[in-house]
């Protein structure tokens, strides 16, 4: 695990050193959760950094073509000091942080479903309203076939989400289940959104029709919390018994 930010205990304080990228909300946050490797025992520990202490710097990452209305930052920690009371007591190893990431992976599957539904519903509304050659677009066989294929994908994504949420409720959700759901839903969402974009023709590239925004925003979800490829390798290790990554 390549986590290079370090934590060093000095009396009742901890000193944090390092740099991190793509930290969501960091430029507007009152409290930031920072993971760092304890120099003493080599374990990953969690700390709460409040406000804007000495040695802390957060710089907004600009020029994004995806999820443009939310901000991420590069942060640097140059000897930031926090009291021991700011340490998350349950976060003593990287395994503890893994529990957090397993839960958010399922959130990504739900998010991808939302993007796909959004694009499908725009396409359905548009094709009902827009007339070509004397009839609404939905009167054409090829349009109906595309819409129903999109509906089929959206429905399968809903079922993944429903079952994984139920398993979470029963305490049975495994990170590989969430990984499979995230991989499936982000890949399928990309396809559904691309079809919707196509059905809207030239109007599909206008931001005011929403599909283009879904099309680029899904790219962020496809990548964060573990890419589709990483999810595949995690599930692949589970079903084959062989880890194809280190």
């Amino acid at each position: 695990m390549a986590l290079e930010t370090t934590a060093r205990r000095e009396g009742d304080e901890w000193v944090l050193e390092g740099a991190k990228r793509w930290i969501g909300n960091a430029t507007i946050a009152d409290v930031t959760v920072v993971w760092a490797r304890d120099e003493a025992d080599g374990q990953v520990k969690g700390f709460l950094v409040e406000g804007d202490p000495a040695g802390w710097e957060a710089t907004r990452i600009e020029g994004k073509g995806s999820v443009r209305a939310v901000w991420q930052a590069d942060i640097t920690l140059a000897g930031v000091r926090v009291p021991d009371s700011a340490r998350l007591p349950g976060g003593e190893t990287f395994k503890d942080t893994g529990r957090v990431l397993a839960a958010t992976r399922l959130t990504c599957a739900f998010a991808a479903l939302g993007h796909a539904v959004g694009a499908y519903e725009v396409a359905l509304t548009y094709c009902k309203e827009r007339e070509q050659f004397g009839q609404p677009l939905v009167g054409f066989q090829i349009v109906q076939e595309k819409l129903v294929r999109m509906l089929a994908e959206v429905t399968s994504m809903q079922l993944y989400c429903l079952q994984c949420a139920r398993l979470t409720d029963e305490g049975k959700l495994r990170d590989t289940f969430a990984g499979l759901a995230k991989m499936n839903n982000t890949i399928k969402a990309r396809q559904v959104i691309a079809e919707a974009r196509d059905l809207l023709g030239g109007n599909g590239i206008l931001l005011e029709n929403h599909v283009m925004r879904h099309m680029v925003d899904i790219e962020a979800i496809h990548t964060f919390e573990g890419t589709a490829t990483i999810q595949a390798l995690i599930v692949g290790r589970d079903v084959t018994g062989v880890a194809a990554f280190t």
Partner: protein
Amino acid sequence: MTTASPSGSEELGRGLGTDYLLIGESLTEAELDYLERTRRFVDDEVLPVIVDHWERADFPFALARRLGELGLIGDGLEGEGIPAMSPLAAGLINMELNRGDGSLGTFLGVQAGLAMRSIAYLAPRSRGRAGCPPSRGPRRSAPSR
């Protein structure tokens, strides 16, 4: 020839509640309420303004605040001041918010899914200043990995 284009029409983007296999019938009343509350928020408050924010790369602070006011920031976590919701309700909120906009969805995923969850899982008992950030207030939190 082309007829009047519905491009940018107010109907475009509004939720249709796509649920072909009647999954909604298996939802509890509370889950349905969270779903419908988020849907109304997206249709009435997010969609009319979000394209402008997105294009200007401007974070919609007012919408983020509304998420708290509407009791939508919780993600199924337990803690003082956090609205209780099942994992499915939490998922439906994330789904519906992303139907409207991925930036706001990402904000919620970071605030509740990562930052608040880290604190709730790893510091389950609020310890004064290092406790869980209130989900309704203006305080925001960021995770860094």
